Structures are given as C-alpha cells and as structure tokens.
C-alpha cells in the first residue's frame, strides 16, 4: 500500500515536472483554431492566405467602399443627392466629418490594417516553416503575402498620406504584435513598399503566370489573375514608382507587363462584350485583368447598390446634365465616343437619362470566366502609366500607348500626334474616368496629379474654390491619433 501511494505520488510529480505538462496546458479551443496549430502545415498557410483575400473582398474594403462605393462617391462620379449613405459627400464635397462618412473611412483603415495583421502572421512564421511546403508553394505564398502587404500599404499611403513624401504618413506594419508601429514619413513607407514588392517579385519568379499559365488543376494555383501574381506585383511597382514620381522605374515595370500582355492578358475581343446574350458578355474585360478579387456575392452587392437598387441607394449619374457634368459628356459622345464599348456595354441607362456602371452586373448564368470579379489592376493602367512617363520625353510613344487602349475600346479616331504635354495629360485623365469607373482609381489619380477641380463637375467645381491636397487626405481614425505614435 505504502509503495503504491508513493508510486502514484511520484507519478504525479513527474507529470508536473516534465514538458508533457506544458503540452497538456495548451488547450485547443473547439470552435476556433490556434495559430500555431493552423500554421503547422502548408494547407494552414493556404487557408490563412485565402482568408486574407476573403477579408479584402469585404464590402467595407474592395468589395465596395474602396472601389465603386465610397472611393468613386468621394470624387463625385455619381449624383448622390438621394443616396442615404453617401449624400454627405455631395453636400460637402471632400469633407469626411459626418458620422456616416467618418465611419466608412475609419472602417477602411481598421480593416486594411486587419488584413495586414493577417498577412503579417503568415510572414512571421513562414520562413521557419519553409520545409513544410511542397513544390513552389513556399515562394508563391510568401510572394503573394508580401504583395498583399505592399498593395494595401500603398493604398493606405495614397488615401491617408500626402503626395509630399517628406510628410509623416502612415505606419508600415511588418509584424503582428502588441508593439505600436509609429507613423513613418511617406518616403520611408514608399521604401518599405518597394522592398516588399521586390521581395514579392523575387519569390514569384516561379509563378506559373510567367509562362502564361492562368489556369491550373490545383485549385490553389488556379486563376492566377485572381491572386497577386508576378505581373500584378510589377503593376503595383509601376503604380508605386509613379506615386514616388520615379518615372524611369515606373516605366520599366509598366513595360515589363505591357511586353507580355498581348500573350497573357490580351485585349478583350469585341465579340466577347457585344455578344447578344447578356450572360455571354465579359463586362470587366476579364482577360485584361492583372489582378481581380473574386467577390462571390457580387450579384447581391451589385443589385443592392446598382442594378435593382432603391432610389436611396442607387449609385447613378445623370446623362446630360447642364454644363459638362453629364455622363455622355464624359464619354464624348458628341465627338469620338459614340461607339465606346465602355459606354455601350459597361454602362447601363436606367430611366430616361440616368446611367449606372454595368461592370459588376451579374446576369443569371453569366459565364463563370466572367463572373464575380472586382478588377483592381488592369493592363490598360500600364498603358496610361507608360504614356504619362513618356510625356515630355517621347510624346509620340505616349500617344501610341493611349491610342492602343482607345482602339481596343472602339474609339476609331486616333489621337493627334501633335498633342501638347498638357493635352496628353487631359486625355489620360479622360481615360482614367472612362476606363476605371467603379474601380476607385480616379481619387488617387486626381490627388497625385493635383487636379484643381473634381472631374466632371462644372468648371470651378461644386466647391467653388480650387481643391487642395489637404482635402484629399483622409482623416486617420481618432483612436490611431490618440493611441498611435
């Protein structure tokens, strides 16, 4: 008896003192999964990365607000008078103080950094777990994760930072933890963006897209244009360098994409947009997408805000308003634009003279290749960047880049070779408006190029005074100012 008790006493003591008890103390929740358990294998990393894209497609981010919602509303590409959620943006253009708008802006910031936190947790652990990966998946996952981090930080910089990169802008967060990352100057942020993008490109050298493969039998590697692939990274670099005003490097990166684009990201065949049945129309020009988010519920979202929306939520624009603010003026129907595919097919007339963006329209049985896509990077942007970089250096080249896009959009009249630098810039702005409607790119373009009026508004603008950059810097959340550094 005595021995038995002593033995059991010893057993308990051993149990307590050995490391197995540390394991026992690690409780596994039943409804959630611990990070270290998830990231035990390649599948866990894949799940975490897919989770990041899933977060990005949320409506408070690229599923709506940062594309066709808040972003385009803020730069007044809609008539917002009746739209409850955004009408404050037309009552007081370029101010973000009303509760509703402030909430949208704060949520965008919070959610973008939340994606960054998710990506950082992958990046914090992936190097140590390199041996767990098969094939090229380590590089692909790491490359994409770095690219997401850079892409979102670049958008944060474009929205919440000044174009003057010597100003303090945003925190560039590179690890998950409770230590607060202080806000850096724009140039430091830019440096980190470019570093991450270079790393991403390095890792993505093994991307199957480099040999032109978008599709794959492995579901994770399928539809490379819906992941941040090698060329998407190059496109972000072109965008970033241009923001930095480093035209040389912007051009190099844009050209790398342009060079392979006809093979891998070919221009849309007119037949694919003019098809008689709506379900056969490729509204986003999907072959041209360098990166588009898969938004599986785009039909619901589109219907709520555009296609079957009520008057208090429909984002529409009147066709021929007085002055120069109408939709038809934007497409220059009176001169060159009457047959623009983007007007005829990617825009829909509702009512007598109001138009809505048709890009996200998801008719029943829409071809799966075309469905549920929210384009974030497109080959046409590379042409515009290349054109802008050539202004003053080789204007003819610039005009050629623009004509290439115009030709593929059904504008048969080419731009004159004698355009001045400013005229070329004007044409680029027109293209941004026509090409990226519903994609939220115009705001950043206007900010970077220091437009003094909001495009499409009467001369002098709604504001009355020329717009200044300050009005295009979104406010940081109060809690970031109060508790951040």
């Amino acid at each position, binding site marked *: *008896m005595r021995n038995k*008790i002593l033995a*059991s*006493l010893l057993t*308990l*003591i051993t*149990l*307590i003192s050995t490391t197995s008890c540390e394991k*026992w*103390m*690690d*409780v*596994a*929740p*039943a*409804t*959630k*999964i*611990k*990070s*270290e358990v*998830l990231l035990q294998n390649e599948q*866990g990393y894949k*799940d*975490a*990365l*897919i989770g*990041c*894209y*899933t*977060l990005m497609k949320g409506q408070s981010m690229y599923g709506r607000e940062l594309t066709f919602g808040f972003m385009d509303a803020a730069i007044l590409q809609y008539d917002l008078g009746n739209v409850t959620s955004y009408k404050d943006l037309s009552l007081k253009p370029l101010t973000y103080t009303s509760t509703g708008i402030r909430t949208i802006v*704060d949520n965008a*910031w*919070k959610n973008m*950094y*939340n994606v960054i*936190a*998710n990506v950082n*947790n992958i990046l914090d652990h992936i190097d140590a777990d390199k041996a767990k990966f098969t094939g090229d998946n380590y590089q692909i996952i790491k490359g994409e994760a770095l690219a997401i981090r850079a892409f979102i930080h670049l958008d944060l910089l474009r929205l919440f930072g000044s174009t003057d990169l010597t100003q303090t802008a*945003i*925190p560039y*967060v590179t690890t*998950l*933890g*409770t230590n*607060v*990352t202080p806000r850096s100057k724009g140039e430091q942020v830019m440096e980190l963006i470019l570093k991450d993008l270079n790393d991403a490109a390095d890792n993505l050298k093994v991307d199957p897209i480099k040999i032109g493969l978008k599709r794959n039998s492995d*579901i*994770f590697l*399928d539809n490379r244009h*819906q992941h941040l692939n090698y060329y998407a990274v190059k496109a972000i670099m072109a965008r970033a360098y241009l923001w930095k005003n480093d035209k040389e490097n912007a051009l190099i990166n844009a050209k790398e994409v342009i060079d392979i684009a006809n093979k891998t990201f070919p221009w849309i065949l007119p037949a694919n947009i003019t098809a008689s049945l709506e379900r056969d129309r490729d509204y986003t020009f999907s072959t041209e997408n360098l990166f588009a988010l*898969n938004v*599986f519920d785009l039909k619901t979202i589109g219907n709520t805000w555009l296609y079957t929306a009520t008057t208090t939520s429909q984002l529409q624009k009147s066709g021929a308003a007085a002055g120069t603010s109408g939709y038809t003026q934007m497409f220059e129907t009176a001169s060159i634009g009457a047959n623009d595919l983007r007007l005829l097919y990617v825009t829909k007339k509702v009512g007598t003279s109001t138009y809505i963006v048709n890009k996200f329209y998801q008719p029943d049985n829409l071809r799966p290749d075309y469905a549920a896509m929210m384009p974030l990077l497109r080959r046409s942007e590379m042409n515009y960047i290349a054109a802008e970089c050539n202004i003053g250096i080789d204007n003819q080249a610039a005009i050629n880049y623009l004509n290439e896009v115009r030709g593929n959009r059904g504008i048969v009249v080419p731009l004159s070779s004698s355009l001045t630098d400013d005229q070329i810039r004007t044409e680029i702005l027109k293209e941004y408006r026509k090409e990226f409607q519903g994609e939220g790119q115009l705001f950043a373009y206007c900010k970077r190029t220091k437009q003094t009026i909001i495009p499409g508004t009467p001369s002098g603008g709604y504001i009355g005074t020329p717009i200044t950059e300050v009005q295009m810097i979104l406010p940081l*959340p109060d*809690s*970031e100012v*109060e*508790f*951040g*550094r």
Partner: protein
Amino acid sequence: MKNCYEKVITKKYNPKACFRKKSFLALLLMASSINLMAQSEPQQAKEEKTAATATRKKIQINGTITDENNNPLIRVTVGELGTKNGTVTNEKGHFHLIVQDNAVVLITYLGMESQKLRMDGKTTFNIVMKESSTSIKEVVVTGIPFNRKAESFTGSYTKITAQELQSAGTQNIFQSLKNLEPSLNFIDNNATGSDPNKMPELQIRGASSFPDVNNEYATKPNQPLFIVDGFEMAIEKVADLPLPRIESVTILKDASAKALYGARAANGVIVIETVKPKGGALRISYNGTLGIEAPDFSSYNLTNSSEKLALERQLGAYNQKQPIEGLRFDSLYYANLKAVQNGVNTDWLAQPTQTGITNRHTINIEGGDEHWTTGFSLFSNGTQGAMKGSERNNLGGTLSIGYRQSKILFRNQLSLTKSNSTNSPYGDFSFYAQLNPYWRPYNDDGSVRKVLGLSPLYGQTVYNPMFNATLNGRSTSAYTDLTNNTQLEYAFTDHFKVVGRVGFTNTVNGSDEFIPGSNLKFIAFVGDNLYNRGSYDKTNGKSSSVNGDLNANYSNRWGRHLIFVNAAANIREDNSESYSYSATGFPNDKMDNIIFAKQYASSALKPTGSEATTRELGALGMINYSFDERYVADFSLRTSTSSQYGADNRWGMFWSAGAGWNVHKEKFFGDNQYINLLKLRGSMGNTGSQNFNAYQAMLLYNYFVDQSYQGMVGTYLNNLNNPGLKWQQRMDYNVGLDVDFMKRLSLRLDVYKGVTNNLLTDITTPPSLGFATYKANLGQLVNNGFEFRVNYKMFVNTANRQVLNVFVSGASNNNKITKISNSLQSLTNLQDTKSRTSNKPLVRFQEGQSLNSIWAVRSNGIDPATGKEIYVKLDGTLTDVWDPADKVVVGDNLPKMMGTAGANFAYKGLTIGVIGRYRVGGQTYNQTLVDKVENASLNNNVDARAYYDSWKQAGDNVLFRSIGTTQTTTLASSRFVQDLSELSISSVNLGYDFYSYSFVKKLKLSALRMGLNLNDVYQISTVKVERGTSYPFARNCSLTLNASF
C-alpha cells in the same frame, strides 16, 4: 418518513409533480437498496464478532453527570463505543448501562467536552463535564483534508455552524449568510428582488476587479470561490444546497487563510462542509419546512385612482386645442372619471403577485459499524416566488460511503441534483406598477381584459399585460448535476498522512422560452410579418470538471516545538459548452414546440454557442510552526499554471506569511482567570483570480462560415494576443486581535488592506495593430477596511439549558482606483457622452476615486420662479445648462459601516433569536424620484410625491421639476443623492425542542424540534425608494420540523 413522502407527491397533480414523484420514487428505491446493502454486510461482520466475544462478561455501570458548578446534566448521551448500546441521563443526571467489562463508554453533550470512560473494573462513576471553549479548541476547516487548530492559525476567517445558519433563515445558504457575516457584501439588486431564480451577487472585502463592462469574465468578476467538501462548486448549485445538509461554513478572508487556493482565491473563499454520516445504529432524521413568500409592497407609494386622475387633469393631459380632438379627450376624461366614481381603484401591484408556498424536505438515513459508515440523504425543495407562476423546484440525493480500518480512511460521496425553474408568465413587475388605477383588470364575467383603455396623453390603446399570462407561454430552465467525490487517506504514522482526492462533476442544463404569437409583444406584427409572430429561444449546455489532488501532511511535537507541514499537488480540467437557437413564427398558440417554427429568428439566423476548456496544475507547500503555543508562524507558497494565461507567463507564484502571538499563554499573564484568550495575529500574501475567459491569451483563427474565395474557405485571425499576459493578483494585509474575557465576552477585530495588481483589462490599441483591443495587466485597485464581532454570553446555565447571548458585528470597506488603463479612460469618455441622455448617474473610472462613487452635477435645486434646475459648475458659478464636464463625486454607494446585531435566548427547549442588519453612512441615487416622480409619464401611474411635491406654478418652492405633459429626462444631478442608512429586522427565529417530553420517546423519536422563522420582517430606511422593480421583494415566514428516529 412515509408522511413526508406523501406530502411531496400529493402537493400537486401536474406533470411536473409526476416527474418529481417518479424520480423521488426512484431515488428512494435506490436509497433503500443501497442502505440494505450497506447494512447487511456489517450485520454479518457483527455476528461473527459477537460469537468471538461471547465469552466476555457483561457488567452494569451507573453514574452521575454534572457540570462544573455541580448542577446535574440532563439527557447527556452515554454510549458504548463501537456498538448501538447507549442511554441518556435522567433529570438528576443519573444513568445506568450494561456494557462489556472491557468497554469504552463515550459521554457527549452539546457544548461540553466529550469524555471517554474505561471500565478497569469500576462500575460507578461521578463525572464532571467541562464546558467546551469553542473559541480555543475550534478547528479551522480550510477545505484541505487536514484541519488546523484555530489556536495555531494566523489567518482571518469566520466559521459559521449549522445551527447558526439554520436559525438565521430557512431559504438558502446565502439568505442566512447575509444575516450573519458583515464582511460578505451582498450587492442589492433592486430590480430582481426576491426572484428565486436569480443568483445573488456578493463580494468579500470589497471589489477586487473592475466591473465587467466588456464581458471579460466567465462569472461575476468579484464572486468568491465556493469550495464544497474540498471541490469548487458553481454558485447556482451552492444556492440549491439544502440547509440541513450543511455542517459548517467557513469564510476565508486574508492571505494566510486563503493561501491554499492561491491562484483562484483573490475574491475570497467560502468553504462549505456537508454533513458526513456518522456510524452507529441506523438513524433516520427528517427536516421539513413549510413556508410562505409574501410580496412586500411597503416601498411603493403610488397614487390612487382619484389622485392620479386629478393630477392628469391638473397638468393638462386632457387639454387639447383642436375642437374635435378636444372632444375626444374630454370624453376620455369623463369616462375615466366615471370609473373613479364607480370606485375602480385597482391595486395593480397585487395582480401578478401571490403569497407563494415553499416546502422543503430533507431525509437523512445513516448508520454503520466501526469500519463502514453509510449515509443517504434525499431532499426536495419547492419554492413558489412572490410573482404568480414563478417557481424553483429542486430534487436531489446524496449517497455517502465511508470505510475506516487502522491506517486507511476511504470516503465516497455521490450526489445527484435536479433543478427546474420557471419564470412568471406575468412578465416584468414594473409593467404593473405603471398601470393607472382607474383601469379594471377583469371583465364583468371574470375574464382578463385584453385592452385596458386609452392613455391619457396621446389616446393610445393600452393593453393588459396580464393577458399574456392567459396564453400558453413558457420560460423555464433546468439543470441536472451529478457529482462524485472520492477521498482516500492513509496514515503512515501518527505524524505522517497522505490524502488523495478525486472529484468529478457533470452538469447538463438547458432553457426554453416560448412566447406565443398572440402575446402582446407581437401586436404590431401585421401584413407579411404576421407569420413571424411568436418566438422560441432554446439553449442547451453542459459542463464538466475533473479535479484531483494529493496532499501529504506531517506534524510533530518536540518539547515546546510544534510543527505542521503540508505539501500538495493538484490538477484540474473544466469543460463547458452551450448552444442556443432562436426561432420565430408560431401561428397557433398551441404549437409550442420549437419544431413548429416557421424559420430561424431574423436576429440569429443560425445556431450560436460557446465552448471553453481550461486546465490548471498547481503545487503547494505550507508550514506552520508554533513555539510553546505562544508564538505561531505560518508560511505558504503555491505555484499554479493555467491555460488561460499567456505562454510566457503561465506560471503564477503565490505566497503568504503570517505570525501570531497567544499573549494569554505568556508567563507574565500567570494564572489569569479573566482573560482566556488574547491573540494577536497578522498576515500578508497574494492570491490570484481565474474567473476569466478561457482563451483570452491565445492567438486564434476563425474559419469563415459564410464567405469563400474561389471556392476555398479561408481563415482569419480572431484577436490580437498578448503572450505576456499574467495572473491578476491581489495582495492582502491583515492584522487581527482575538479576545475572550471570562468565557463570556469575546471580541474579534480585523483591519485589512487589499491591493489588486496587474488588473486584467483591455488596452485600446491604435487600429494599425489590426485589432481594436488586447488584454493586458494594467490597473490597480485598493480596498481598505476593518471588521469586528463582539459576542457576549450574558448568562449560561447548562443545567436547564438557559443561555442569553447577544452579538454585534460590523464591517467597513472603502475602495479606491489607483491606476487605470486607457480603455477604461475611453470608456469613461463614452459614459460621459451617454450621460447626456441618461437619467441615471453612470459609472466613471477615475484614479483616486472609488468604484462606487456617484458622479453627478451639483444642483442648487429648482428655481421657484421658473421651475428650472440650477446647476453649480466646476468653478462654482451657477447655470441652468447641464454639462457632463461639471460632474463631481457627490456620494458613495458603499456604506461607512454595515453589519448585523442580534440576540439568542434559550431556556430549556425554547430558543428565541433575533437578528437585525444595519448600514450607516454612504449615499444612494434615489432612482424612484427620477423615474416615478420627475420623469414620470402621465400615461403611467406615478409616485404620490409627483402629485404633491412637483413644481406646478411660479412661486412653488418644491423639490421636483414639473412633470408636465411631455416626458423629460433628468440628467444626473446631486438633487437625488440621499444619505442612506438602514435598519432591518432580517431574521426572527423561534424554536422549541421537545426533549423533555415523554411522548417523544413513545413515538420512538430520539429528538423532535420545531421552529418558526421570519425573514426580512421589517425595514426602516432614510430613503424612500421603490424596492424590487422587475420582481418584488418578499417577506418569508416558515415553519420547520426536525425529527430523528
């Protein structure tokens, strides 16, 4: 026994009673069979033994037993050890008994020290029994298997005996503790009143955590730890423990006392020991209580129908400018007036309430021989609350088996408890307090009226909330708990013992709430929404806990040195999970099963639930040394690890040190006859809290459940974790004094300070971290206070059981925030914003202030000229604009002192006890004056003070603003802060023991006792406020019968 069984089942013939009947039967069968088994075996053993000792001689012994003053003692138990053989002394203190010639006879008497007699050839004994000095010989029950002698204990604790507990109340342990122990602060819940299905909220020595604003805690943040027979128990189960099952309650208050539970003891520990079966002949005892719960409306001061109508007219409720509307309101007035004149003056408070009947029965069967003891106990508790239809019914049984042989002691206790609670179908009591007295609840044919009338202000239809009670609605919850505790003790030598214990408990619980479609709640559901009428919420859950510990104890004495060493290791795992789902659309009231639902509720489209697992390991070492019984020292060290804390700081270290000086043992005291006890003691040490969420320190991922990307389902981070998260600790300092003067007057005094460090709070982050908050250890709270208890035995005469005992006790605690986190600061800002629209003072956290401070803007009262309130700004200037920035501390909810005082008198079989509770000092915000007077809506019934004391015209120098016809919101103002002092007669107890009557013996009873208890008899308060707003408070009166066979 049979009687009581019938009493239980014949109570009601409804399905529930049927169920009760069945399970009661089953338990009874189980009981008798087990008992038979337990009995049969020893019987056999005994026969063998008698055979072996048959050759021994029997002798007759006799003797006289007296007390120290030579008074004969009556009914002293004299029993032969190890047999059923025994007797009691007669009126002259004489006894006769035939025993074996080598027998040992045990003499026991309540309040006296037991004695053992060895025959050694003697047959006549003159025995003098000594009064047992409980304060000296008492043991401290700490929940570990080795009890400590009070004399060598340096901690601060209160021990409450079964007798004290039962004489202070019959409802449940908390009701009784409230009347006995001032250091237990029961937070008055004015809303839930005496609802039998609501658990009390209590604190020991102040709040050691911030209030649970963000649901950070798994239980109430300041709830003490309940240890029943060595194992932790949930508060609900403690409340359901039948009082006769409880042997003693010990409240451990300072570091030295609660050190054993180091990691979980920061909020204090309440150790409960249940009655253990005793050996000897088969003994059956029964305890039955029949009582009533009568609603107490004495705090309500509502207007009667004529006052109310007059007030409405006076304030212009019926003055409508538009002619047609005016006509409508005129006719409404005359209709109401007609009702008043016809004598309609409905007492709405009485409509949903009743005098509830409670009945509790406990049967205890025990017996055994020198090796085996068996005990079986069954109980049933049926409580009807003061609201009609509100009930709580418990049924349970406990089977205990003990085995002892030389060095081994084995004990197993298996308990099953089933509890069903039902909430009143009448809904919230406050609905009724609002209804106008000129409305009639019933039609002439006695049926409940659905529509009461039109509201005087806007002419809207007012429905009768009683209508809902006529429908087939249901709001019930239930749990079934199975607990098994096993203990095995082995004594290697007289000095060294090892005890291992394993406890297992499993609870299955669930709740159902069905609101049928015809309920008034859904009256606005028309058109397409019609089919969404009716709702059903269902929750199912289970929890289990496994605990094991191993304790080794060594104690020895060398000359004047006494040492007591204890080492222990423990392991524990808790699991819990619950699921709930809500459905809507029950077109027909008869379709009362959730499967008839049309769909999930739009607010909860899918099932929800939670799950938690926590694990803990710990080791403890403690040493107690005493020198010459004069100097005592205690030291303990505990280390614990819990899965709840961050991987980097999972282990927590807790320690305590204490010292005591028994001054009365000093030589210079000599043979002092006056001072029997004079002990100084002090202790310090720290303890931890563990009632937090299980997974707070982990970095977790969630799976998307309704989102995908390219057909793949991803994961996303759930939270930001803090691997450095460590234990929240409370440092306790205590100095105490125990005095016993001439065995008559005893005094206990404790002064303490408790500092909670590393308070676990949320840290608000900049959102660039990806998340809004994370958990960290920041913040500090300090509690200071003192407690005392004075007991005076005015006279004791054991011969005729004459005792008069008076006591007074008190406790004072004050609380101060010394450090707060930024999230609490933001919360305070948020509260300030909210306070602009709130008619209650909201809690604020500010360093240097108390958690219980009342924050409001100072007020100079109502300007008689304008009827507007005059506020005092921070800088002292006057204004009529309320600004949250002008808020200051205008009072403190904590009393300066609270406690109890009482007296017990016993003479022969009669005992009388009275206990009163008092609180002095401190303030309260009189919410009744705000809700029912100044912010009262004329549509509803109001406090009579709205009729008499509110501003009506210029020149009125009154306390309250005009209530007018439009409802206003009175923002937090010092005008409503009132000094609160209370005195309540909380328990009156009358008992009679029939020991001296011969019929007791004729009925083959060994004891018969009856008692009458009154609880919450009367209350005097300096503040007149409505008590029990959602559920009324009740007075309780009960009759108890105790019988042993």
